[in-house]
Protein backbone atom coordinates (compact mmCIF):
# COMPACT_ATOMS: atom_id res chain seq x y z
CA UNK A 1 0.00 0.00 0.00
CA UNK A 2 2.75 2.41 1.03
CA UNK A 3 4.68 1.38 -2.07
CA UNK A 4 1.71 2.14 -4.29
CA UNK A 5 1.20 5.52 -2.67
CA UNK A 6 4.92 6.30 -3.11
CA UNK A 7 4.76 5.33 -6.77
CA UNK A 8 1.67 7.49 -7.32
CA UNK A 9 3.34 10.43 -5.60
CA UNK A 10 6.48 9.95 -7.69
CA UNK A 11 4.48 9.99 -10.93
CA UNK A 12 2.28 12.90 -9.89
CA UNK A 13 5.40 14.87 -8.95
CA UNK A 14 6.91 14.20 -12.36
CA UNK A 15 3.79 15.24 -14.26
CA UNK A 16 3.41 18.30 -12.04
CA UNK A 17 6.96 19.32 -12.91
CA UNK A 18 6.31 18.85 -16.62
CA UNK A 19 3.11 20.87 -16.32
CA UNK A 20 5.00 23.69 -14.64
CA UNK A 21 7.62 23.62 -17.40
CA UNK A 22 4.88 23.96 -20.02
CA UNK A 23 3.24 26.83 -18.19
CA UNK A 24 6.37 28.91 -17.69
CA UNK A 25 7.45 28.75 -21.33
CA UNK A 26 6.21 32.32 -21.60
CA UNK A 27 4.26 34.77 -19.45
CA UNK A 28 1.90 35.49 -22.31
CA UNK A 29 0.89 31.89 -22.97
CA UNK A 30 0.52 31.25 -19.21
CA UNK A 31 -1.79 34.26 -18.82
CA UNK A 32 -3.86 33.27 -21.86
CA UNK A 33 -4.16 29.65 -20.74
CA UNK A 34 -5.27 30.53 -17.21
CA UNK A 35 -7.49 33.42 -18.32
CA UNK A 36 -9.41 31.45 -20.94
CA UNK A 37 -9.87 28.58 -18.53
CA UNK A 38 -11.47 30.85 -15.93
CA UNK A 39 -13.73 32.55 -18.48
CA UNK A 40 -14.92 29.23 -19.94
CA UNK A 41 -15.69 27.69 -16.58
CA UNK A 42 -17.43 30.74 -15.14
CA UNK A 43 -19.50 30.98 -18.34
CA UNK A 44 -20.86 27.50 -17.69
CA UNK A 45 -22.47 28.55 -14.39
CA UNK A 46 -23.32 32.13 -15.36
CA UNK A 47 -26.94 31.48 -16.42
CA UNK A 48 -28.02 29.94 -13.13
CA UNK A 49 -25.92 32.43 -11.18
CA UNK A 50 -27.50 35.49 -12.81
CA UNK A 51 -31.03 34.08 -12.52
CA UNK A 52 -30.54 33.29 -8.83
CA UNK A 53 -29.18 36.77 -8.20
CA UNK A 54 -31.98 38.49 -10.13
CA UNK A 55 -34.83 36.54 -8.52
CA UNK A 56 -33.18 35.98 -5.15
CA UNK A 57 -33.16 32.20 -5.71
CA UNK A 58 -34.71 29.58 -7.98
CA UNK A 59 -37.79 27.59 -6.91
CA UNK A 60 -37.54 26.70 -3.20
CA UNK A 61 -33.83 27.45 -3.03
CA UNK A 62 -32.58 30.84 -1.99
CA UNK A 63 -29.72 32.46 -3.86
CA UNK A 64 -27.00 31.30 -1.45
CA UNK A 65 -28.07 27.69 -1.82
CA UNK A 66 -27.92 28.13 -5.58
CA UNK A 67 -24.52 29.84 -5.34
CA UNK A 68 -23.29 26.98 -3.17
CA UNK A 69 -24.46 24.43 -5.74
CA UNK A 70 -22.74 26.32 -8.54
CA UNK A 71 -19.54 26.61 -6.47
CA UNK A 72 -19.75 22.89 -5.76
CA UNK A 73 -20.15 22.05 -9.48
CA UNK A 74 -17.23 24.30 -10.39
CA UNK A 75 -15.08 22.76 -7.66
CA UNK A 76 -15.72 19.25 -9.00
CA UNK A 77 -15.01 20.43 -12.52
CA UNK A 78 -11.86 22.30 -11.46
CA UNK A 79 -10.50 19.29 -9.58
CA UNK A 80 -11.10 17.01 -12.56
CA UNK A 81 -9.38 19.52 -14.84
CA UNK A 82 -6.32 19.25 -12.61
CA UNK A 83 -6.19 15.46 -12.47
CA UNK A 84 -7.39 14.38 -15.90
CA UNK A 85 -5.85 16.67 -18.50
CA UNK A 86 -4.29 15.58 -21.79
CA UNK A 87 -7.57 14.05 -22.95
CA UNK A 88 -7.82 11.57 -20.09
CA UNK A 89 -11.15 13.12 -19.15
CA UNK A 90 -12.05 12.88 -22.86
CA UNK A 91 -10.96 9.26 -22.94
CA UNK A 92 -12.91 8.48 -26.13
CA UNK A 93 -10.42 10.67 -28.00
CA UNK A 94 -7.49 8.57 -26.82
CA UNK A 95 -9.31 5.35 -27.66
CA UNK A 96 -10.71 6.53 -30.99
CA UNK A 97 -7.40 7.94 -32.14
CA UNK A 98 -5.49 4.76 -31.33
CA UNK A 99 -3.45 6.58 -28.66
CA UNK A 100 -4.16 3.99 -25.98
CA UNK A 101 -1.17 2.06 -27.33
CA UNK A 102 1.11 4.71 -25.83
CA UNK A 103 -0.36 4.04 -22.38
CA UNK A 104 -0.16 0.27 -22.79
CA UNK A 105 3.53 0.45 -23.69
CA UNK A 106 4.40 1.92 -20.30
CA UNK A 107 5.48 -0.50 -17.54
CA UNK A 108 2.73 0.67 -15.23
CA UNK A 109 -0.73 -0.72 -14.42
CA UNK A 110 -3.20 0.97 -16.72
CA UNK A 111 -5.16 2.53 -13.85
CA UNK A 112 -2.02 4.19 -12.53
CA UNK A 113 -1.20 5.72 -15.89
CA UNK A 114 -4.83 6.83 -16.17
CA UNK A 115 -4.88 8.73 -12.89
CA UNK A 116 -1.41 10.26 -13.15
CA UNK A 117 -0.62 11.09 -16.78
CA UNK A 118 -3.05 14.00 -16.98
CA UNK A 119 -2.01 15.72 -13.74
CA UNK A 120 -1.83 19.48 -14.39
CA UNK A 121 -1.73 21.25 -11.04
CA UNK A 122 -0.13 24.45 -12.29
CA UNK A 123 -2.04 25.30 -15.45
CA UNK A 124 -5.48 24.25 -14.21
CA UNK A 125 -5.95 25.28 -10.57
CA UNK A 126 -7.44 28.70 -11.25
CA UNK A 127 -10.99 27.36 -11.54
CA UNK A 128 -10.60 25.30 -8.39
CA UNK A 129 -9.34 28.29 -6.41
CA UNK A 130 -12.15 30.58 -7.59
CA UNK A 131 -14.77 27.85 -7.17
CA UNK A 132 -13.52 26.94 -3.71
CA UNK A 133 -13.62 30.57 -2.60
CA UNK A 134 -17.10 31.04 -4.08
CA UNK A 135 -18.35 27.84 -2.44
CA UNK A 136 -16.85 28.85 0.92
CA UNK A 137 -18.36 32.33 0.72
CA UNK A 138 -21.84 30.98 -0.04
CA UNK A 139 -21.51 28.16 2.53
CA UNK A 140 -20.97 30.75 5.26
CA UNK A 141 -24.37 32.19 4.37
CA UNK A 142 -26.25 28.88 4.45
CA UNK A 143 -28.92 28.37 7.14
CA UNK A 144 -27.30 25.23 8.60
CA UNK A 145 -23.86 26.75 9.16
CA UNK A 146 -20.49 25.07 8.76
CA UNK A 147 -19.53 22.34 11.25
CA UNK A 148 -16.81 19.68 11.27
CA UNK A 149 -19.38 17.05 10.25
CA UNK A 150 -20.52 19.29 7.44
CA UNK A 151 -16.96 19.70 6.14
CA UNK A 152 -16.42 15.92 6.23
CA UNK A 153 -19.67 15.40 4.35
CA UNK A 154 -18.69 18.06 1.83
CA UNK A 155 -15.28 16.50 1.13
CA UNK A 156 -16.80 13.00 0.81
CA UNK A 157 -19.44 14.30 -1.58
CA UNK A 158 -16.94 16.26 -3.67
CA UNK A 159 -14.74 13.18 -4.10
CA UNK A 160 -17.77 11.02 -4.87
CA UNK A 161 -19.13 13.51 -7.41
CA UNK A 162 -15.74 13.66 -9.13
CA UNK A 163 -15.67 9.87 -9.24
CA UNK A 164 -19.16 9.76 -10.73
CA UNK A 165 -18.28 12.29 -13.43
CA UNK A 166 -15.19 10.28 -14.41
CA UNK A 167 -17.13 7.00 -14.29
CA UNK A 168 -19.78 8.54 -16.57
CA UNK A 169 -17.05 9.77 -18.92
CA UNK A 170 -15.38 6.35 -19.03
CA UNK A 171 -18.61 4.36 -19.47
CA UNK A 172 -19.67 6.42 -22.47
CA UNK A 173 -16.14 6.93 -23.72
CA UNK A 174 -15.65 3.16 -23.90
CA UNK A 175 -18.04 3.11 -26.86
CA UNK A 176 -15.06 4.32 -28.88
CA UNK A 177 -13.57 0.83 -28.49
CA UNK A 178 -16.32 -0.44 -30.77
CA UNK A 179 -16.76 2.65 -32.94
CA UNK A 180 -13.43 4.53 -32.89
CA UNK A 181 -14.29 7.08 -35.53
CA UNK A 182 -17.98 7.73 -34.77
CA UNK A 183 -17.50 7.84 -31.01
CA UNK A 184 -14.16 9.67 -30.91
CA UNK A 185 -15.84 12.81 -29.54
CA UNK A 186 -18.47 11.16 -27.36
CA UNK A 187 -16.61 12.08 -24.16
CA UNK A 188 -16.74 15.76 -25.06
CA UNK A 189 -20.51 15.46 -25.54
CA UNK A 190 -21.01 13.73 -22.19
CA UNK A 191 -18.72 16.25 -20.54
CA UNK A 192 -20.76 19.10 -21.98
CA UNK A 193 -23.91 17.42 -20.72
CA UNK A 194 -22.49 17.14 -17.19
CA UNK A 195 -21.37 20.76 -17.21
CA UNK A 196 -24.68 22.10 -18.51
CA UNK A 197 -27.22 19.90 -16.72
CA UNK A 198 -25.12 19.49 -13.59
CA UNK A 199 -25.38 23.17 -12.77
CA UNK A 200 -29.18 23.30 -12.93
CA UNK A 201 -31.31 23.15 -9.78
CA UNK A 202 -33.21 19.94 -10.57
CA UNK A 203 -35.76 20.35 -7.78
CA UNK A 204 -37.90 22.27 -10.27
CA UNK A 205 -38.21 19.31 -12.67
CA UNK A 206 -40.68 16.39 -12.53
CA UNK A 207 -39.93 13.54 -10.13
CA UNK A 208 -39.52 10.96 -12.93
CA UNK A 209 -36.96 13.12 -14.66
CA UNK A 210 -35.24 13.78 -11.34
CA UNK A 211 -34.95 10.03 -10.78
CA UNK A 212 -33.46 9.57 -14.26
CA UNK A 213 -30.96 12.35 -13.66
CA UNK A 214 -29.57 10.72 -10.53
CA UNK A 215 -29.44 7.16 -11.91
CA UNK A 216 -29.24 6.55 -15.65
CA UNK A 217 -27.67 9.90 -16.45
CA UNK A 218 -26.25 10.77 -13.03
CA UNK A 219 -25.74 14.49 -13.60
CA UNK A 220 -27.87 15.18 -10.52
CA UNK A 221 -25.18 13.54 -8.40
CA UNK A 222 -22.49 15.86 -9.67
CA UNK A 223 -23.84 18.95 -7.83
CA UNK A 224 -27.58 19.18 -7.29
CA UNK A 225 -28.22 16.26 -4.90
CA UNK A 226 -25.11 16.84 -2.77
CA UNK A 227 -25.92 20.56 -2.60
CA UNK A 228 -29.51 19.82 -1.61
CA UNK A 229 -28.30 17.71 1.30
CA UNK A 230 -25.48 20.03 2.37
CA UNK A 231 -27.17 23.40 1.85
CA UNK A 232 -30.53 22.55 3.39
CA UNK A 233 -31.60 24.10 6.69
CA UNK A 234 -31.12 20.95 8.81
CA UNK A 235 -27.48 20.33 7.85
CA UNK A 236 -26.24 17.07 6.36
CA UNK A 237 -28.50 14.11 7.09
CA UNK A 238 -28.54 10.57 5.73
CA UNK A 239 -29.22 11.99 2.27
CA UNK A 240 -25.62 13.26 2.26
CA UNK A 241 -24.53 9.63 2.01
CA UNK A 242 -26.40 9.08 -1.27
CA UNK A 243 -23.66 10.37 -3.56
CA UNK A 244 -20.74 8.70 -1.69
CA UNK A 245 -22.67 5.41 -1.79
CA UNK A 246 -23.56 5.73 -5.45
CA UNK A 247 -20.01 6.55 -6.54
CA UNK A 248 -18.56 3.02 -6.05
CA UNK A 249 -21.44 1.57 -8.09
CA UNK A 250 -20.69 3.86 -11.02
CA UNK A 251 -16.96 3.32 -10.67
CA UNK A 252 -17.38 -0.48 -10.71
CA UNK A 253 -19.59 -0.15 -13.79
CA UNK A 254 -16.93 2.02 -15.41
CA UNK A 255 -14.13 -0.45 -14.64
CA UNK A 256 -16.17 -3.38 -16.00
CA UNK A 257 -17.14 -1.52 -19.16
CA UNK A 258 -13.61 -0.32 -19.75
CA UNK A 259 -12.13 -3.78 -19.19
CA UNK A 260 -14.55 -5.21 -21.71
CA UNK A 261 -13.58 -2.51 -24.15
CA UNK A 262 -9.91 -3.15 -23.55
CA UNK A 263 -10.41 -6.87 -24.22
CA UNK A 264 -12.11 -5.94 -27.48
CA UNK A 265 -9.22 -3.60 -28.26
CA UNK A 266 -6.78 -6.48 -27.79
CA UNK A 267 -8.85 -8.53 -30.25
CA UNK A 268 -9.17 -6.00 -33.04
CA UNK A 269 -6.37 -3.56 -32.28
CA UNK A 270 -6.40 0.03 -33.32
CA UNK A 271 -7.70 0.42 -36.83
CA UNK A 272 -6.71 4.07 -37.03
CA UNK A 273 -4.03 6.27 -35.52
CA UNK A 274 -4.10 10.04 -35.17
CA UNK A 275 -1.38 11.89 -33.33
CA UNK A 276 -3.66 14.89 -32.80
CA UNK A 277 -3.75 15.92 -29.14
CA UNK A 278 -1.26 13.28 -28.07
CA UNK A 279 1.08 14.57 -25.35
CA UNK A 280 0.64 18.12 -26.49
Amino acid at each position, binding site marked *: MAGRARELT*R*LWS*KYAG*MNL*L*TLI*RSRRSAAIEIGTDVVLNVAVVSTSLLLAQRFNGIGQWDKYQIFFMLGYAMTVNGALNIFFGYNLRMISRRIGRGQL*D*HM*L*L*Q*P*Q*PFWRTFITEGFMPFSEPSVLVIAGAFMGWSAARLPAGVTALWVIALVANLIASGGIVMAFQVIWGAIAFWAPMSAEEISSSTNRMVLQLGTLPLNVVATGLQATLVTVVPVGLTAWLPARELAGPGGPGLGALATPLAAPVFLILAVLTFRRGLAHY*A*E*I*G*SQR*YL*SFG*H*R*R
Partner: protein
Amino acid sequence: MPRSDRSDTSASDTVVELAEVTKTYRRRRRSEHIGQALARFVRPTFETVTALDGVSLRIGRGEVVAYAGPNGAGKSTTIKILSGLLAPDQGRVRVLGLHPLRQRIELVSRISVVFGQRTELWWDHPVAASFDWKRVVWGIERSDYDRMVSFVKDLLGLDDFFHSMARELSLGQRMRADLGLALINEPELMLLDEPTLGLDVLAKRRVLQSIVDMNRERGMTVLVTSHDMPDLETLAPRVVVINHGALAFDGAFSQFRTKLGDPRRLILVTADEQPPALTGATLVRSDGGRHQYAFDANDVPIAGLIDQAGALATLLDVETQRASIDDVVADVYDRWLGERVTQAAPPSGRIRPR
Protein backbone atom coordinates in the same frame (compact mmCIF):
# COMPACT_ATOMS: atom_id res chain seq x y z
CA MET B 1 13.63 -3.21 -12.96
CA PRO B 2 17.30 -3.83 -12.17
CA ARG B 3 18.84 -6.58 -14.25
CA SER B 4 19.50 -8.66 -11.12
CA ASP B 5 15.76 -8.82 -10.37
CA ARG B 6 14.81 -10.17 -13.74
CA SER B 7 13.58 -13.73 -14.12
CA ASP B 8 15.85 -16.39 -15.55
CA THR B 9 14.09 -16.07 -18.91
CA SER B 10 16.62 -13.37 -19.74
CA ALA B 11 19.28 -16.05 -19.87
CA SER B 12 17.37 -17.99 -22.51
CA ASP B 13 18.70 -17.97 -26.06
CA THR B 14 15.26 -17.52 -27.54
CA VAL B 15 13.97 -13.99 -27.30
CA VAL B 16 10.96 -14.21 -29.60
CA GLU B 17 8.91 -17.31 -30.11
CA LEU B 18 5.83 -17.50 -32.29
CA ALA B 19 4.30 -20.92 -32.86
CA GLU B 20 1.45 -21.40 -35.33
CA VAL B 21 0.14 -17.91 -34.65
CA THR B 22 -3.04 -16.94 -36.43
CA LYS B 23 -4.77 -13.60 -36.43
CA THR B 24 -7.84 -12.66 -38.40
CA TYR B 25 -9.83 -9.46 -38.59
CA ARG B 26 -13.49 -9.19 -39.42
CA ARG B 27 -14.01 -6.28 -41.76
CA ARG B 28 -17.23 -4.73 -42.90
CA ARG B 29 -17.65 -4.61 -46.67
CA ARG B 30 -18.09 -1.07 -47.96
CA SER B 31 -19.26 0.29 -51.25
CA GLU B 32 -18.94 3.64 -52.98
CA HIS B 33 -22.21 3.05 -54.88
CA ILE B 34 -25.19 4.51 -53.03
CA GLY B 35 -27.54 1.62 -53.85
CA GLN B 36 -25.08 -1.01 -52.68
CA ALA B 37 -24.08 1.09 -49.67
CA LEU B 38 -27.75 1.38 -48.66
CA ALA B 39 -28.22 -2.37 -49.07
CA ARG B 40 -25.20 -2.97 -46.86
CA PHE B 41 -26.46 -0.40 -44.38
CA VAL B 42 -29.63 -2.46 -44.01
CA ARG B 43 -27.91 -5.85 -44.20
CA PRO B 44 -24.25 -5.48 -43.32
CA THR B 45 -21.88 -7.97 -44.88
CA PHE B 46 -18.48 -8.83 -43.51
CA GLU B 47 -15.30 -10.38 -44.78
CA THR B 48 -12.57 -12.10 -42.84
CA VAL B 49 -9.05 -10.87 -43.44
CA THR B 50 -6.27 -13.20 -42.40
CA ALA B 51 -3.43 -11.06 -41.08
CA LEU B 52 -1.33 -13.97 -39.79
CA ASP B 53 -1.83 -17.51 -40.95
CA GLY B 54 0.00 -20.05 -38.81
CA VAL B 55 3.18 -18.03 -38.43
CA SER B 56 6.04 -19.72 -36.61
CA LEU B 57 9.23 -17.86 -35.87
CA ARG B 58 12.11 -17.95 -33.42
CA ILE B 59 14.59 -15.16 -32.86
CA GLY B 60 17.69 -15.76 -30.80
CA ARG B 61 19.39 -13.37 -28.41
CA GLY B 62 21.49 -10.72 -30.13
CA GLU B 63 20.08 -11.32 -33.61
CA VAL B 64 19.03 -8.55 -35.96
CA VAL B 65 16.16 -9.80 -38.04
CA ALA B 66 14.63 -7.96 -40.95
CA TYR B 67 10.92 -8.56 -41.25
CA ALA B 68 9.85 -7.77 -44.77
CA GLY B 69 6.74 -7.97 -46.83
CA PRO B 70 4.41 -5.86 -48.92
CA ASN B 71 1.90 -3.49 -47.33
CA GLY B 72 -0.81 -5.41 -45.50
CA ALA B 73 1.29 -8.58 -45.29
CA GLY B 74 1.00 -8.81 -41.49
CA LYS B 75 4.22 -7.11 -40.32
CA SER B 76 2.62 -4.56 -38.00
CA THR B 77 0.19 -7.15 -36.67
CA THR B 78 3.18 -9.28 -35.65
CA ILE B 79 4.86 -6.34 -33.91
CA LYS B 80 1.66 -5.49 -32.03
CA ILE B 81 1.20 -9.10 -30.92
CA LEU B 82 4.80 -9.24 -29.72
CA SER B 83 4.43 -6.01 -27.77
CA GLY B 84 1.21 -7.09 -26.06
CA LEU B 85 -1.07 -4.66 -27.86
CA LEU B 86 -2.95 -7.32 -29.76
CA ALA B 87 -4.07 -10.85 -28.92
CA PRO B 88 -3.56 -13.68 -31.40
CA ASP B 89 -6.58 -15.82 -32.28
CA GLN B 90 -4.53 -19.01 -32.01
CA GLY B 91 -1.00 -20.09 -31.37
CA ARG B 92 1.66 -19.53 -28.77
CA VAL B 93 3.53 -16.27 -28.31
CA ARG B 94 6.39 -15.75 -25.91
CA VAL B 95 8.72 -12.78 -25.75
CA LEU B 96 11.66 -13.12 -23.35
CA GLY B 97 9.73 -16.10 -22.01
CA LEU B 98 6.77 -13.90 -21.10
CA HIS B 99 3.17 -13.91 -22.25
CA PRO B 100 2.85 -10.48 -23.87
CA LEU B 101 -0.72 -9.79 -22.80
CA ARG B 102 -0.78 -11.38 -19.36
CA GLN B 103 2.68 -10.17 -18.36
CA ARG B 104 2.50 -6.84 -20.16
CA ILE B 105 4.05 -4.69 -17.45
CA GLU B 106 7.17 -6.83 -17.01
CA LEU B 107 7.50 -7.28 -20.75
CA VAL B 108 7.32 -3.60 -21.67
CA SER B 109 9.91 -2.77 -19.03
CA ARG B 110 12.35 -5.07 -20.86
CA ILE B 111 11.60 -4.24 -24.48
CA SER B 112 11.15 -1.10 -26.54
CA VAL B 113 8.82 -0.53 -29.43
CA VAL B 114 9.21 2.20 -32.02
CA PHE B 115 6.53 2.85 -34.59
CA GLY B 116 7.87 4.96 -37.44
CA GLN B 117 4.68 6.98 -37.82
CA ARG B 118 4.23 7.68 -34.12
CA THR B 119 6.29 9.44 -31.53
CA GLU B 120 6.70 8.84 -27.82
CA LEU B 121 8.14 12.33 -27.37
CA TRP B 122 6.24 15.00 -25.48
CA TRP B 123 5.42 17.48 -28.20
CA ASP B 124 5.62 20.73 -26.26
CA HIS B 125 8.70 19.80 -24.26
CA PRO B 126 12.40 19.61 -25.03
CA VAL B 127 13.64 16.17 -26.04
CA ALA B 128 15.52 16.01 -22.74
CA ALA B 129 12.23 16.29 -20.81
CA SER B 130 10.83 13.21 -22.56
CA PHE B 131 13.96 11.30 -21.61
CA ASP B 132 13.59 12.31 -17.98
CA TRP B 133 9.88 11.41 -18.11
CA LYS B 134 10.86 7.91 -19.22
CA ARG B 135 13.39 7.66 -16.39
CA VAL B 136 10.62 8.24 -13.85
CA VAL B 137 7.86 6.16 -15.45
CA TRP B 138 10.20 3.23 -16.15
CA GLY B 139 11.84 3.55 -12.74
CA ILE B 140 15.37 3.73 -14.17
CA GLU B 141 18.14 4.29 -11.63
CA ARG B 142 19.74 7.74 -11.98
CA SER B 143 23.25 6.33 -12.55
CA ASP B 144 22.00 3.94 -15.28
CA TYR B 145 20.02 6.76 -16.82
CA ASP B 146 22.98 9.15 -16.94
CA ARG B 147 25.17 6.46 -18.48
CA MET B 148 22.56 5.60 -21.14
CA VAL B 149 21.76 9.21 -22.01
CA SER B 150 25.43 9.84 -22.60
CA PHE B 151 25.64 6.67 -24.70
CA VAL B 152 22.62 7.41 -26.91
CA LYS B 153 23.58 11.05 -27.37
CA ASP B 154 26.90 9.90 -28.82
CA LEU B 155 25.41 7.04 -30.79
CA LEU B 156 22.61 8.99 -32.41
CA GLY B 157 24.12 12.46 -32.45
CA LEU B 158 21.39 13.97 -30.27
CA ASP B 159 23.48 16.77 -28.77
CA ASP B 160 22.49 19.32 -31.41
CA PHE B 161 18.80 19.15 -30.61
CA PHE B 162 18.58 17.50 -27.18
CA HIS B 163 17.23 20.69 -25.66
CA SER B 164 14.98 21.62 -28.58
CA MET B 165 11.23 21.21 -28.47
CA ALA B 166 10.08 17.94 -29.99
CA ARG B 167 7.70 19.83 -32.27
CA GLU B 168 10.63 21.76 -33.78
CA LEU B 169 12.55 18.67 -34.93
CA SER B 170 12.84 17.45 -38.49
CA LEU B 171 11.49 13.98 -39.22
CA GLY B 172 14.99 12.48 -39.16
CA GLN B 173 15.87 14.18 -35.87
CA ARG B 174 12.57 13.11 -34.39
CA MET B 175 13.19 9.49 -35.33
CA ARG B 176 16.70 9.59 -33.85
CA ALA B 177 15.29 11.07 -30.65
CA ASP B 178 12.61 8.37 -30.56
CA LEU B 179 15.27 5.68 -31.04
CA GLY B 180 17.33 7.19 -28.24
CA LEU B 181 14.30 7.33 -25.98
CA ALA B 182 13.59 3.69 -26.76
CA LEU B 183 17.13 2.76 -25.77
CA ILE B 184 17.49 4.34 -22.37
CA ASN B 185 15.80 1.51 -20.49
CA GLU B 186 18.45 -0.83 -22.01
CA PRO B 187 15.87 -3.04 -23.71
CA GLU B 188 16.75 -6.65 -24.40
CA LEU B 189 14.56 -6.55 -27.49
CA MET B 190 13.85 -3.65 -29.81
CA LEU B 191 10.82 -3.86 -32.08
CA LEU B 192 11.04 -1.32 -34.87
CA ASP B 193 8.07 -0.88 -37.17
CA GLU B 194 9.01 1.04 -40.32
CA PRO B 195 11.63 3.22 -38.60
CA THR B 196 12.78 4.79 -41.85
CA LEU B 197 9.37 5.70 -43.22
CA GLY B 198 9.41 9.15 -44.79
CA LEU B 199 13.08 9.86 -44.04
CA ASP B 200 15.39 11.40 -46.62
CA VAL B 201 18.47 9.46 -47.76
CA LEU B 202 20.85 11.00 -45.23
CA ALA B 203 18.53 10.65 -42.27
CA LYS B 204 17.74 7.10 -43.30
CA ARG B 205 21.41 6.17 -43.53
CA ARG B 206 22.06 7.60 -40.07
CA VAL B 207 19.12 5.79 -38.49
CA LEU B 208 20.07 2.48 -40.12
CA GLN B 209 23.69 2.81 -39.00
CA SER B 210 22.52 3.59 -35.47
CA ILE B 211 20.47 0.40 -35.35
CA VAL B 212 23.47 -1.65 -36.50
CA ASP B 213 25.65 0.06 -33.88
CA MET B 214 23.10 -0.51 -31.14
CA ASN B 215 23.12 -4.20 -31.88
CA ARG B 216 26.91 -4.39 -32.06
CA GLU B 217 27.58 -2.39 -28.92
CA ARG B 218 24.72 -3.55 -26.68
CA GLY B 219 24.12 -7.05 -28.06
CA MET B 220 20.49 -6.10 -28.30
CA THR B 221 18.05 -8.24 -30.26
CA VAL B 222 16.32 -6.27 -32.99
CA LEU B 223 13.29 -7.09 -35.10
CA VAL B 224 12.82 -4.43 -37.72
CA THR B 225 10.06 -4.22 -40.30
CA SER B 226 10.13 -2.35 -43.54
CA HIS B 227 8.83 -2.72 -47.04
CA ASP B 228 12.09 -1.21 -48.23
CA MET B 229 14.43 -4.12 -49.05
CA PRO B 230 17.70 -2.19 -49.48
CA ASP B 231 17.16 -0.72 -45.98
CA LEU B 232 16.72 -4.15 -44.51
CA GLU B 233 19.70 -5.58 -46.36
CA THR B 234 21.84 -2.86 -44.78
CA LEU B 235 20.61 -3.83 -41.36
CA ALA B 236 20.23 -7.51 -40.97
CA PRO B 237 21.96 -10.69 -42.05
CA ARG B 238 18.70 -12.60 -41.60
CA VAL B 239 15.49 -11.79 -43.42
CA VAL B 240 12.04 -13.12 -42.73
CA VAL B 241 9.59 -12.42 -45.51
CA ILE B 242 5.88 -12.50 -44.85
CA ASN B 243 3.23 -12.44 -47.49
CA HIS B 244 -0.53 -12.61 -46.97
CA GLY B 245 0.05 -13.51 -43.34
CA ALA B 246 2.26 -16.52 -44.05
CA LEU B 247 6.03 -16.78 -43.86
CA ALA B 248 7.40 -17.01 -47.35
CA PHE B 249 11.10 -17.03 -46.55
CA ASP B 250 13.37 -17.12 -43.52
CA GLY B 251 17.12 -17.17 -43.91
CA ALA B 252 20.19 -15.21 -44.89
CA PHE B 253 19.90 -12.35 -47.35
CA SER B 254 22.37 -14.13 -49.64
CA GLN B 255 20.08 -17.18 -49.71
CA PHE B 256 17.16 -14.90 -50.38
CA ARG B 257 18.93 -13.46 -53.40
CA THR B 258 19.73 -16.97 -54.64
CA LYS B 259 16.10 -17.96 -54.21
CA LEU B 260 15.01 -14.90 -56.09
CA GLY B 261 17.38 -15.74 -58.94
CA ASP B 262 19.40 -13.14 -60.77
CA PRO B 263 16.82 -11.33 -62.84
CA ARG B 264 18.26 -8.96 -65.40
CA ARG B 265 17.29 -6.93 -68.41
CA LEU B 266 18.94 -7.21 -71.82
CA ILE B 267 18.51 -4.24 -74.10
CA LEU B 268 19.31 -4.69 -77.76
CA VAL B 269 19.38 -2.00 -80.42
CA THR B 270 19.07 -3.57 -83.84
CA ALA B 271 19.07 -2.24 -87.42
CA ASP B 272 15.73 -3.92 -87.99
CA GLU B 273 12.57 -2.91 -86.09
CA GLN B 274 11.51 -6.56 -85.76
CA PRO B 275 12.69 -7.93 -82.35
CA PRO B 276 14.65 -11.19 -82.58
CA ALA B 277 13.04 -14.14 -80.71
CA LEU B 278 15.56 -15.25 -78.08
CA THR B 279 15.34 -18.63 -76.36
CA GLY B 280 15.52 -18.19 -72.56
CA ALA B 281 14.51 -14.51 -72.54
CA THR B 282 11.13 -12.85 -72.55
CA LEU B 283 10.49 -9.79 -74.67
CA VAL B 284 9.25 -7.07 -72.31
CA ARG B 285 9.10 -4.07 -74.64
CA SER B 286 9.96 -3.15 -78.20
CA ASP B 287 10.12 0.42 -79.41
CA GLY B 288 11.44 1.01 -82.92
CA GLY B 289 14.74 -0.83 -83.05
CA ARG B 290 15.16 -0.92 -79.25
CA HIS B 291 14.08 -4.20 -77.62
CA GLN B 292 14.05 -5.04 -73.93
CA TYR B 293 14.17 -8.66 -72.66
CA ALA B 294 13.90 -10.12 -69.18
CA PHE B 295 15.97 -13.17 -68.25
CA ASP B 296 17.49 -14.93 -65.27
CA ALA B 297 21.29 -14.82 -65.46
CA ASN B 298 21.48 -17.90 -63.23
CA ASP B 299 19.73 -19.98 -65.93
CA VAL B 300 20.72 -18.31 -69.18
CA PRO B 301 24.28 -17.09 -69.87
CA ILE B 302 24.34 -13.55 -71.21
CA ALA B 303 26.94 -14.46 -73.84
CA GLY B 304 24.61 -17.15 -75.24
CA LEU B 305 21.78 -14.63 -75.58
CA ILE B 306 24.02 -12.14 -77.36
CA ASP B 307 25.24 -14.88 -79.71
CA GLN B 308 21.62 -15.79 -80.50
CA ALA B 309 20.74 -12.14 -81.12
CA GLY B 310 23.81 -11.62 -83.31
CA ALA B 311 22.81 -14.56 -85.46
CA LEU B 312 19.23 -13.28 -85.90
CA ALA B 313 19.75 -9.52 -86.35
CA THR B 314 22.30 -6.82 -86.95
CA LEU B 315 23.22 -5.52 -83.47
CA LEU B 316 23.95 -1.79 -83.13
CA ASP B 317 24.18 -1.73 -79.32
CA VAL B 318 23.88 -4.11 -76.35
CA GLU B 319 23.19 -3.24 -72.72
CA THR B 320 22.42 -5.35 -69.63
CA GLN B 321 20.90 -4.14 -66.36
CA ARG B 322 20.74 -5.83 -62.97
CA ALA B 323 17.32 -5.34 -61.38
CA SER B 324 17.31 -3.56 -58.02
CA ILE B 325 16.34 -5.72 -55.07
CA ASP B 326 13.25 -3.57 -54.70
CA ASP B 327 12.13 -4.40 -58.26
CA VAL B 328 12.94 -8.05 -57.79
CA VAL B 329 11.03 -8.27 -54.57
CA ALA B 330 8.09 -6.41 -56.08
CA ASP B 331 8.01 -9.02 -58.87
CA VAL B 332 8.22 -11.78 -56.30
CA TYR B 333 5.39 -10.28 -54.27
CA ASP B 334 3.33 -10.28 -57.45
CA ARG B 335 4.23 -13.90 -58.17
CA TRP B 336 3.39 -14.91 -54.62
CA LEU B 337 -0.15 -13.63 -54.93
CA GLY B 338 -1.21 -17.05 -56.08
CA GLU B 339 1.31 -19.38 -54.54
CA ARG B 340 1.58 -19.08 -50.82
CA VAL B 341 4.49 -20.86 -49.21
CA THR B 342 4.01 -21.50 -45.53
CA GLN B 343 6.92 -22.54 -43.44
CA ALA B 344 6.57 -24.64 -40.33
CA ALA B 345 8.88 -24.26 -37.35
CA PRO B 346 11.36 -27.06 -36.80
CA PRO B 347 11.40 -28.61 -33.33
CA SER B 348 14.25 -26.37 -32.24
CA GLY B 349 16.58 -23.73 -33.57
CA ARG B 350 15.84 -21.34 -36.36
CA ILE B 351 13.42 -21.94 -39.16
CA ARG B 352 15.19 -22.72 -42.39
CA PRO B 353 13.99 -21.79 -45.83
CA ARG B 354 12.74 -24.58 -47.99
